[in-house]
């Protein structure tokens, strides 16, 4: 197993870290950086629990080698808000009761954020499609869908009814 040093920006912070060629990005995030908000469900790209945003794209971090993230910009759930200052999507999840066991939640929230960036006014079908790569065993999805609707409404009224992208 050969070791090598990689560098990337994660949640706005520059990191240089030693890793191996067989380390998954998921393990680097959880075990080396101790950012345990990102979860491992299936380890096969099927469930979305390990979702992070890398270079603007949603990715399953269980399917990516750590070395592939060299030079990348990564956002995990820890990067979008914290207990003192939650992201509007996180707030909406809490308010609507969209969190039960919470295992799918970090991935769901990142998927929702990404969707709302691309489509600030999604209808119900678009929301369903937008999170269809993220499995949830607890909620039956309805409260998650409600949360995303609520967040979309709030975000668009904050932007005077317009999204940042429209500007």
């Amino acid at each position, binding site marked *: 197993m050969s070791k090598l040093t990689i560098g990337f920006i994660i949640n706005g912070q520059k990191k240089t870290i030693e890793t191996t060629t067989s380390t998954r990005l998921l393990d680097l995030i959880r075990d080396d950086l101790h950012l345990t908000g990102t979860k491992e469900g*299936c380890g*096969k790209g*099927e*469930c979305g629990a390990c979702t992070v945003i890398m270079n603007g794209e949603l990715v399953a971090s269980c399917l990516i080698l750590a070395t592939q993230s060299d030079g990348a910009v990564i956002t995990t759930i820890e990067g979008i808000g914290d207990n003192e200052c939650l992201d509007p999507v996180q707030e909406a999840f809490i308010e*609507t*009761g969209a*969190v*039960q*066991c*919470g295992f799918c939640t970090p991935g769901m929230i990142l998927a929702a954020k990404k969707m709302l960036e691309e489509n600030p006014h999604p209808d119900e079908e678009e*929301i*369903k*499609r937008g*999170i*269809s*790569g*993220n*499995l*949830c*065993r*607890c*909620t*039956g*999805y*309805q*409260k*998650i*869908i409600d949360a995303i609707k609520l967040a979309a409404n709030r975000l668009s009224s904050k932007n005077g009814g317009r999204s940042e992208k429209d500007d």
Partner: protein
Amino acid sequence: MKKQGRGIATIMFGFGYGEGFPDHAIASAEIEEGGKILIRTAAADVGQGVLTIITQIAAEVLKVKPEAIRIIPGDTHLTKNSGSSSATRQTFFTGNAVKEASEGLLSNIYHYASIEFRSNHVELGIKDGYIFRNDNPKNKLSYWELAERVKERGDSLKAEASFFPRTDIPDPKTGQGKKVYVAYTFVTQVIEVEVDTDTGIVEVLNVYTAADIGKAINPKNVEGQIEGGTVQGIGMALMEEQVIKEGITLNPDLTSYLIPTSMDTPHFATLLVENEDSEGPFGAKGIGEPATIATTPAIANAIYDAIGVRIYHLPITPEKILKALKEENKRGNKEGF
């Protein structure tokens, strides 16, 4: 061709271990420094919301804001047995234990305050964590100030309680018993589906649920349990099938063992029937497992209603539907001749 159908199913579910099992829960409540009331319980919250429920119960009984409640959950060093998070029992069992412990603490608050105020408890009032004489509400003591005074007396302001209901072992011959379970939850679901007779694919359109849960301590939470349980029931009805051969699971992943995704979520309408049960905390009953049981038979009935063929083996996959339709066609053709 797309055909629509509607099906109904009703279930009853006895929750808790029942059948004479020594099922019980213990909890305690105490005034702790820093303006909090500490509840200890071993109840495990695996997402079903029991910690939210007991926070609400303690806050309601002790007449404080939910923010004033702190919980130490599930620590074998610091908490006593509350039983498992299974059998749809935590709201009922630990909910009752927390309610009783909170009531015990409230009684002690009255007791010690009546000593402090040199007054009888009926002359005392309580509001937002303060206790006072009704004829002089300005001269009030917070629970925490009172706890200090109680401490000076060498005592402490706390209470422990348990809920340990009796249930009967059913008669082995008749299966009957006087009270086999602590209570029963009733759920009826009406489900509408659309079956594509060319592909065999079933789409669940609408799910109407009426659930007698006694009292919804947290209605949003109850709805969440019902929606989650229903979608698991949809999985059981239409897609989830573990294939085992010689003790080995042949489909141990989520591409060969399918579970519902957001695309499978139907439209929900839920009616909570709050027919308070005398023994539950504030009349509440359990909803965890009952939420999932009616869904599968209601879907099977709806499919029958849509295509006129009954399928007896779960899951009702597109292959099974197409095969059943083909057989039905053959039979129909024969009868036609």
